[in-house]
């Protein structure tokens, strides 16, 4: 468990360890996937849905989900979208550069509990990043699960993450993938509209009322999707979502990530809907 893995009496808890960038893959104009390997031979085991704090020397530190693990080298992957001070510097990193890393932190997706069930995965934008290791896990343990459907929405076709992998997933008979964009381009032949417009397609493959639903995306998207799902007879207990807040410590001390009674860093970022549902509807909480 996480608690034992962290030394409790040393300041190590707050001091990132050096990791080298062993590869950079450009996903979209503003997003890259960094592959990281410890300079000290640390090996991290993590649950899909957990995150690390990535540190740039003297610049700052931000929470970034673990977006996968390299099948051969076991290097950890992190998909970063440039939106501000630290993330803009992170996407400029090149192979050989060094970052700091603390983690993994938080609670991940309930993949054990979902064994033997249908799964619906709903992702919006960069929200696919924390769900990618869940998909990788599910594909590696495919027989333990029933139907699996991925619904993924992005702003434009150029913003779709992991295009090669999406193609590969689309080719599988045991995984249904539906993609939509807010705005198409000349070449786009697919769906246009918000991700919830894909729900009727998902319902062709699974019974929503029996499925476990994992979602990550902008908070408005998740709020709308949760309502839409409940309207279709899904019980809140079936829905899990990953939340995002400012984080400074990742271990429940700094107070920044509070969302009502929850510390998102420690009690989340993945929550069952009933735990947070009334709070989701309160503005500026």
């Amino acid at each position, binding site marked *: 468990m996480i608690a034992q893995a962290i030394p409790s009496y040393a*300041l190590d*808890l707050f*001091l990132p360890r050096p990791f080298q960038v062993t590869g950079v893959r450009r996903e979209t104009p503003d997003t890259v996937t960094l592959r990281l390997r410890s300079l000290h031979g640390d090996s991290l085991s993590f649950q899909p849905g957990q995150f690390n704090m990535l540190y740039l020397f*003297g610049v700052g530190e931000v929470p970034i989900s673990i977006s996968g693990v390299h099948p051969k080298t076991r290097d950890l992957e992190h998909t970063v979208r440039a939106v501000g001070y630290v993330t803009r510097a992170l996407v400029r990193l090149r192979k050989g550069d060094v970052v700091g890393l603390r983690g993994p932190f938080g609670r991940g997706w309930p993949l054990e509990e979902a064994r033997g069930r249908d799964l619906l995965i709903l992702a919006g934008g960069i929200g696919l990043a924390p769900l990618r290791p869940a998909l990788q896990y599910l594909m590696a343990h495919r027989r333990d699960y029933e139907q699996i459907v991925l619904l993924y929405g992005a702003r434009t076709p150029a913003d779709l993450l992991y295009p090669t992998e999406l193609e590969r997933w689309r080719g599988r008979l045991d995984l249904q993938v539906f993609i939509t964009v807010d705005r198409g381009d000349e070449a786009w032949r697919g769906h246009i509209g918000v991700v919830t417009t894909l729900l009727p397609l998902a319902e062709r493959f699974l019974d929503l009322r029996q499925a476990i639903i994992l979602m990550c995306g902008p908070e408005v998207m998740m709020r709308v999707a949760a309502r839409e799902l409940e309207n279709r007879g899904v019980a809140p207990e079936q829905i899990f979502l990953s939340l995002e807040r*400012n984080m400074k410590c990742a*271990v429940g001390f*700094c107070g920044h990530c509070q969302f009502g009674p929850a510390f998102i860093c420690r009690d989340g970022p993945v929550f069952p809907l009933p735990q947070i549902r009334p709070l989701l509807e309160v503005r500026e909480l």
Partner: protein
Amino acid sequence: MADPEVRTPTGSLWRMEKAQLQTLMEKLTQQGYTIIGPRIQEGAIVYDEVHRISDLPIGWTDEQDGGSYRLKRRGDEAFFGYAVGPHSWKRFLHPPVFSLGRTRRNGQGFEWTPPADPPPRYAFLGVRACELHAIAILDRVFMGGPYVDPVYRARREALFLIAVQCTTAGGTCFCASMGTGPKAPPGADLILTELPDAFVVEIGTERGAALMAEIPCTPATEADRAAVEAHLEETARSMGRQLDTADLPALLYRNLEHPRWEEVAQRCLTCGNCTMVCPTCFCFTVEDLSDLAGTQAERVRRWDSCFTTAFTYTAGRPIRQSAKARYRQWLTHKLASWWDQFGTSGCVGCGRCITWCPVGIDLTEEVRAIRETDGALAGERR
């Protein structure tokens, strides 16, 4: 050294001449403690290093009300004849600014040098009942969860605690409502009560017993005991404020959209004073700094406040943009969500946030207003 089992067992009560407090302080210093206690600085009673009894605010008291604090001479020579000041013990256990480490590039990577100074060994002198509760609350925050904060723990574990029960209630105090005073809860090494001519000392721990065994004292009399009880009753009766805590978390949770939040936000300056003076507010931020050449960097943690807009900056904007949202976060955290997080209230009724609020916002009044119009919704009023 005398055998504490025989001389001063835990729970026993002793009478100590006031001047002997000096001996007690000397013994603590000899044992390597840095003593922190009350002293007057810039017109207020604050907590700082004290070396002798003459450093204490002898003969002074504090007059407190919403947004006001004033020192006043007492008619007597009481050592601890005040309530609480703008400082809390928090600043010594959870320092306002703390360097977590310095780092420099080495070869491919970088290496951290954690702070070299050993953590201080403090003896706190003059800890109030509400403040003992506040420390117990911080214990839960920093040591009671899946992670333990090494900064807090190092200071906390070395701590020697000398409580002094209040014989005067402050104008903004409401510990009696919160069940946090004026009687000191267990936890202190020694618990003092000041009588006009002596201290009554209760032995709280074995450590306290060992120390008291070295101080001249006599067993407390029945009259001493009765005097202590009478003082505590009188203090409890003279609380400056009151808070009805019945069903408080649920009351606040069901009133997140109450118009009162908007009303208090009209007055609140979002200065964050209330969070700084509060003995339990624990939030901090982490800053990463580097030299101009970019070869050395430092990581510093610094007290932060949920009243700043930057506190919730996420995805291009602060989540709690309005003053209303920030005050609501603070109050509901203190009185409601703290229970869910740590199994206790986050407020001990010390009154500091009322006294040190520049505009005198009073949480007891805010709660009362919400309670009286329970269920009102913003937008319903004309």
